[in-house]
């Protein structure tokens, strides 16, 4: 295709992405290097319905004068990246120096918000992604062998966990998993432990979130793999069968290689989505036990005083994290790409 033709074909989508994604990314990056001006504090009298008292307030005029003189704010370089809320270099170095063994060092790391979030985010990503691919693949194989008439209905019900809004789907499960809800009671009965509560222990909360993650995303893998199975070259399968390949060998040598590009695609999308895990943490009220990078951003923007610079910094770190995570897949895609041209 000529450059010119390519340009016109690609222009609409490029414009949309430049305006609404690229431009905000630039401002996010800029924001992560700047902080608001120092606030000039004064003590003055504050009165409300319950009485008057002396309180610290911001001197608006003096602060505004600062604001007008430097509208972009204070340039602080990498300060925010290195502060306690993010990479916490000073605290990490300190923990390393005063460690009494590796366990102690990791405990100290776990006390810092960024590393605590990373611990959950990475565990979640690397447990949920393979699991959902396996489960999705198995459902696809199972559904594919069903009778034609059953397929439609089964596909619809299989899609339910994906098509329901994550915020609401996880809320429903959260209610059911309460120690007096139907699932919570069932689990207590199965474990034979009437005091079992999924929400009270860190370990069980992690399990709950990950099971939810697989439940929610397996249908996506299923749909993609199922589509792939429909294009399976029947003659190759036939040939394998004539060669005496058993069922397992057919799956291993014909079906899986055929689906490999789709596995890459699903892995790519899901690694990224799982790394940004957010909704289940909010709906499951799980922040006491599990936090993620996206949750930190949400929390920074949530309070009465919004921390834009901190949120921007965590966003940039998230993008970098995704890039590192995806790099093996990307290298593979690059090789495929070069191989083709």
């Amino acid at each position, binding site marked *: 295709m000529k450059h010119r033709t390519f340009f016109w074909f690609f222009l609409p989508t490029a414009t949309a992405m430049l305006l609404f994604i690229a431009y905000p990314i630039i401002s996010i990056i800029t924001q992560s290097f700047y902080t608001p001006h120092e606030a000039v504090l004064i003590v003055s009298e504050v009165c409300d319905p319950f009485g008057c008292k002396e309180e610290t307030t911001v001197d608006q005029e003096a602060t505004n004068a600062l604001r007008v003189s430097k509208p972009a704010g204070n340039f602080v370089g990498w300060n925010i990246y290195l502060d306690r809320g993010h990479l916490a270099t000073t605290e990490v170095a300190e923990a390393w120096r005063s460690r009494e063994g590796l366990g102690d060092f990791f405990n100290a790391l776990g006390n810092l918000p960024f590393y605590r979030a990373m611990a959950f985010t990475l565990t979640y990503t690397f447990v949920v992604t393979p699991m959902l691919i396996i489960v999705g693949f198995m459902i696809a194989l199972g559904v594919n062998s069903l009778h034609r008439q059953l397929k439609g209905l089964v596909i619809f019900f299989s899609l339910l966990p994906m098509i329901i809004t994550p915020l609401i789907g996880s809320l429903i499960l959260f209610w059911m998993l309460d120690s007096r809800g139907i699932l919570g009671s069932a689990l207590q009965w199965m474990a034979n432990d009437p005091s079992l509560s999924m929400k009270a222990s860190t370990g069980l909360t992690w399990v709950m979130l990950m099971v939810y993650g697989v439940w929610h995303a397996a249908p996506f893998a299923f749909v993609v793999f199922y589509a792939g199975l429909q*294009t399976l070259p029947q003659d190759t399968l036939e040939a394998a069968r004539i060669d005496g390949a058993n069922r397992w060998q057919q799956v291993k040598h014909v079906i899986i290689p055929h689906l490999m590009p789709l596995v890459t695609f699903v892995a790519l999308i899901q690694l990224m989505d799982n790394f940004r895990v957010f909704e289940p943490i909010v709906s499951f009220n799980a922040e006491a036990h599990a936090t993620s990078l996206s949750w930190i951003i949400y929390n920074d923007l949530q309070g009465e005083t919004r921390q834009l610079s901190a949120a921007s910094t965590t966003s940039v770190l998230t993008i970098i994290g995704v890039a590192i995570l995806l790099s093996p897949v990307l290298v593979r895609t690059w090789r495929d790409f070069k191989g083709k041209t």
Partner: protein
Amino acid sequence: MASPANRMPRGLRIASTLFIVTWLIMAAFPFFWTLWGSFKVEIDFFSIADWTTALTGDKTKETYGSPITGAGYYGAWVQEEFGRAVINTFIVCFFVVCTSLTIGTLGGYALSRSGFRYTFWLLMIALIFRAVPPITLVSGYLLPFFEWNVWGILPTTIIVLVAINQPFTLWMLHSFFQSIPKELDESAKVDGCTQFQAFRRVIIPVMWPGVVTTGLFSFLLAYNDFAVTALLLSKENQTMVPKIASFLGTTQTEGNVMFAVAAVVSATVPLFILVMFFQRQIVGGLTAGAVKG
């Protein structure tokens, strides 16, 4: 698949059926439970005392004289005008899917047909774009949108959702177009068509299975979005998901959880109809084999 020579051995068939049945129960049970519970009062459905009250509906009976009540639905639809949110959602979904597919098809097609190196980098950049957490993007939009006076209206949200969804759409359609043989449009070009004519006459007729599947994902994104719609839409233009979230109450004030449950069930019905309607396209379309390599 089901040729006689390849019939499954009995053990495997039982195992496979069992697995599918287990999965179906896991996938569908929460929704049937919610559907059932939406006709109860809060204290029964959430069964804080004992989960069996969700089945018997003791408190519901005490309050409404029957173990089943439509109070949640009445509250959500009549009192809180959930219908308006439904209409808004459909407007948003319709335009998001159409716009997203139109510009995504053009872009994805171009990416799949151009062999230059920059296409790879464009795909990579799109992937990085997808990595940005939506909440950060949205909080950046607020100020300019208020200044240009476009905050709170549906078109703004539609454009933002289309843009946020483009990376995924591009990737998906790019892979679909790659599996359509290049010879098809090449030969059309040899016959004297321009690239666009080739696209229109040769590619469009065979691209539907891929487009429908991508469209389904665009639809779900728009339908389920919370981050964008909660912050960019004013109260009267709200779509379903933020509306449902607003039923849940805040720290200082009581929400109306049963309105939310009834609304959740109501919000799932259109999805049910949609999938039933498009099931043939989703299943049959993919089977048609247009994507055969």
